[in-house]
């Protein structure tokens, strides 16, 4: 084997290793879905991106994406609280609107941990907390650190 081949194998090996390791390291979000029949699903390592006031949560297998649109954002100290009004589930080539009853979205855009008002709950730097109640009685919580903000 030539020196050139050795270097190519080394670089390819390192790139593959880095690629495999990087996805779970960034995607630290957790989504919990409790449906009205009592069933609970917990999705680990979801990725979260924020574009304007729209939060996109993608499942670990990248097959499902939940899009939560919010408005009525107001500052509570360093925490921003918004009210979600629309939720769309995109997966398997289809988009499903999930009728939303109410919910709350908290963002901590600061670099310091923040405690939510009237609560002992703390949000870490760049962390997001979403609570949703759908019209069909499903309760959704999403929490974790934002992977990308546009």
């Amino acid at each position, binding site marked *: 084997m030539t020196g050139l081949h050795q270097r190519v*194998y080394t670089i390819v090996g390192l790139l593959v*290793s880095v690629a495999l390791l990087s996805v779970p390291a960034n995607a630290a979000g957790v989504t919990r*879905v409790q449906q009205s029949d009592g069933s*609970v699903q917990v999705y680990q390592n979801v990725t979260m991106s924020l574009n304007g006031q729209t939060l996109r949560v993608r499942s670990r297998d990248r097959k499902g994406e939940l899009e939560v649109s919010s408005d*009525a954002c107001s500052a509570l100290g360093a925490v921003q609280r918004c009210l979600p009004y629309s939720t769309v589930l995109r997966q398997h080539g289809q988009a499903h609107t999930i009728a939303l009853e109410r919910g*709350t979205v908290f963002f901590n855009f600061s670099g310091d941990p923040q405690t939510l008002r009237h609560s002992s709950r703390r949000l870490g730097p760049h962390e997001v907390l979403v609570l949703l109640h759908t019209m069909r009685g499903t309760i959704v919580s999403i929490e974790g650190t934002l992977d990308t903000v546009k």
Partner: protein
Amino acid sequence: MNDSSKRVGPFLALIIALLPVTTFAQAHGGGGTRPPVSRPAPAPRPAPASRPATGGFNFNHDIVPAPAHQTVPIRSAAPRVATPERGAPQPANAAAPARGNASGRTAYVPPANYHRAQFTPNHTGGPYSEHFGGHPIRNPRFDGRQYGWNNGVVWRPAPIYWGGGFWGPFALVDLSAAVLFGSVLDAENNVYYPSYQVEPDTPGYDILNDYGLQQAECGPPGLVEIWGPDDSVVCADPNDEAAAGNYEVDPATFTLVPAT
């Protein structure tokens, strides 16, 4: 084994060792290192619908259309009604909007032949919508810079909440958690606009505080009537900052604009 195999071997071993963490986990529907936990409810219930085995998120109850004879349940329970004592002493924090009490007084209720005003998104002022041309009353706490009161973040109403969420996170489909606080009548069209008690830590609560206004039950004459987003309205006792009459909230400057 030749020389090149010995050099490539460690990398292949590393790659194979990492594969179960990513690729294999995805086969369980995106649950990460563990498949999603599914715990049935302890009480006997209808059997949960099976999870789709194709990955992504499971919202099977929410994405299945309702049968033709079944509509989405909208709880229309009557909201709690506040019955405040008008003229009661102000609380120690006089700037804070009052909360109602259960004094037993009759609340102001609209006449039976009046209908609730239809929800009209992006409309404000109810029957006075064309009349808010007065000079804005300067907010005593802010300089009028656009959204300076909100750290520069643009405030827009969220359409599934009463008043767009300006006065509190009151879901339009279930206002039973909100406290009804009188209503404003539109005698010309025989409609009424219900009002609810303002929640603390909301823009609506803050703007009342800024002007030193005390929220009052809508209904009697001689009140400050403040029209917010999506035809929402709250009332307050007049003070030195705002005389009795109709006002519109300008969310950008956080000011009250009087009707002319």
